[in-house]
């Protein structure tokens, strides 16, 4: 087990969210045969993760599929019980909340789920979906709730909102659904929003509008947003700071500009090179990764990235690198978990 030093925020203000050594283990499902002939196994979906998010900040969280991004997001709103670690929001450890405290907490913290097709109840009308959180928290009377619902829909970019109130999700396009989804999340005017891959399922022509909404929320409502995505180009567009995850670990964190333009971790670099870009054209000759991602159930002892990494040596295979402040160079004021961070070489 590794000890993680907590990355220090470069901001002086009091952090809104403070996560310390958070882990989540899943018991793996096995078939009856393997149960008969084997042992119980665990999957480390989130492994000893620590970070902070400031008021009014958009933090990007990137990494390949299955690295634990969604799990981390769900931990932050207690949709999953952490296996260990603490999550301090506004000075309280939310992992110790009672169910009534949790309910109060949930007014302040909302999630936009990964898949807009799945995240809204197909049997509810738009107005019902959006006003449901108000009802749950007994906010306002019917009239007032409708007003707020309409406002939230308008804020989410669905206008004229009245036209949509009576529709069912399946009568909406993907972009419209995602907006309903967003409206539901912001109708309580939360302080903190987790946006889990909010645009990955959408057509390019509607993505942009959604991204712009987040900017607006940040600016107009001082909302803190954890923006989860595996798509670095949207993160580049939107986020103040960015965290890169690999197999349950945070491997690099820092100002977006630094992370994307001056990556320190080899993995970040690979990620960046893989982003398809209309400008990049057919020059895909850059070195690309080879080999296999290690099995998250059966992790190697050293650096998890070593098997992919072109710079890896025995040390990498033996010792697990800790997340550390980088000290060299002004541009790379971020933290990285690598024995041999890349020197200042912009992509």
């Amino acid at each position, binding site marked *: 087990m590794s000890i993680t030093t907590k990355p220090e925020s470069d901001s002086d203000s009091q952090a809104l969210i403070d996560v310390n050594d958070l882990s989540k283990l899943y018991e793996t499902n096995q078939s009856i045969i393997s149960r008969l002939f084997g042992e119980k196994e665990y999957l480390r979906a989130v492994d000893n993760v620590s970070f902070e998010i400031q008021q009014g900040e958009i933090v990007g969280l990137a990494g390949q599929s299955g690295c634990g991004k969604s799990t981390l997001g769900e931990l932050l709103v207690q949709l999953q019980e952490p296996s260990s670690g603490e999550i301090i929001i506004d000075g309280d450890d939310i992992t110790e909340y009672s169910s009534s405290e949790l309910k109060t907490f949930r007014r302040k913290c909302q999630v936009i*789920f990964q898949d807009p097709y799945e995240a809204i109840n197909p049997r509810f009308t738009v107005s019902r979906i959006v006003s449901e959180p108000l009802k*749950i928290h007994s906010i306002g009377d019917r009239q007032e709730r409708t007003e707020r619902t309409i406002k939230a829909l308008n804020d989410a970019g669905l206008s004229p909102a009245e036209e949509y109130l009576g529709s069912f999700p399946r009568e909406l396009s993907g972009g419209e659904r995602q907006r309903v989804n967003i409206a539901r999340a912001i109708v309580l005017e939360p302080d903190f929003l987790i946006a889990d891959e909010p645009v990955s399922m959408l057509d390019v022509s509607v993505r942009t509008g959604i991204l712009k909404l987040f900017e607006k929320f940040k600016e107009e409502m001082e909302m803190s947003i954890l923006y989860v995505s595996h798509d670095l180009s949207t993160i580049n567009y939107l986020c103040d700071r960015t965290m890169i995850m690999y197999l349950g670990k945070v491997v690099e964190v820092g100002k977006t500009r630094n992370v994307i333009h001056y990556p320190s971790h080899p993995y970040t670099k690979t990620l960046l090179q893989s982003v398809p870009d209309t400008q990049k054209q057919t020059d895909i000759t850059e070195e690309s990764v080879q080999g296999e991602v290690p099995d998250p159930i059966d992790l190697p002892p050293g650096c998890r990235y070593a098997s992919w990494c072109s710079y890896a040596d025995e040390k990498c295979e033996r010792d697990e690198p800790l997340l550390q402040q980088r000290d060299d160079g002004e541009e790379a004021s971020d933290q990285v978990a690598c024995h041999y961070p890349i020197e200042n070489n912009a992509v």
Partner: protein
Amino acid sequence: MTLLGDALTKNQRIVLETYKERTQWAVQRFLSNRMAAIALLIVLGTLFMAIFAPFLAPYEPQANIADAQGEYSMLEPPSSEHIMGTNHHSQDILSQWIYGSRVSLLVAFLSGIAVMLIGTTVGLVSGYYKGTVDLVLMRVVDILYAIPAIPLLLVVSLLFGSSVWNVIIAMILILWRTMARVVRSQTLSLSERPFVKAAKASGASDLRIMYVHIAPNLLPIILIEGVFVMGAAILLEAGISFLGLGTTEMISWGVMLQLTYTSGAITHAWWWVLPPGISITVLVVAFFYMSRGIEEITNPELQHR
């Protein structure tokens, strides 16, 4: 304010219109399935017959009818006097047949509805809470599964005596298990769906999540299974009637068939043997086709292919 008020009425109108459209669409779609439409007609016809039995039946179903000379007419084939003939006790088969529909439908609807309620609740609780609750409830279901239906029905009706109500209770006792399983497995997957997580993230209570968010999504499957249960209930009732544990206070189709069997009418009184058997078969098939009709409306997968 007025502006908003206008908006509201407009919204409500939209909501109403969509509901109306959807209902209309569903009805149309159901009726455009010819078998489902016929099935519905059969079930409604039987329902009509059951409700208005006293007005439709020419005789008391249990009366031993004697003619003016005090002569009984036993095992008479259909005649103008007795359109469907008489049975061995000089009872009017048409009247028995009409009254007999009551028990079948009563058994079907009551057990169907009760099974829907119980099965859904158990399934929801089990699938939603998972863990120990699930383990315990599913063990109970397993145990129920391990006990065969007809023998258990027999024991239960022996235990409580044979009456329509006891038959229904026994039926419910047996049939809720499948519903519970089906609902549970759906709930298991539904409760992992992001929209349920979203409700949770909004602070909804467990009860609210189960009944407001999850249950409506189960409606189709509950209906389909419920209608299936209704068919099964009719058959089970006929089965235990056949074994002589049928209802005593009301004549049922199952009891009619049992009488044809015990009295040996099978070899010669076709007018007595055929109607109840055919009616049971047709009604049960009708329930199945109705469930398929419902399935077709509610399962988008089936709509295009």
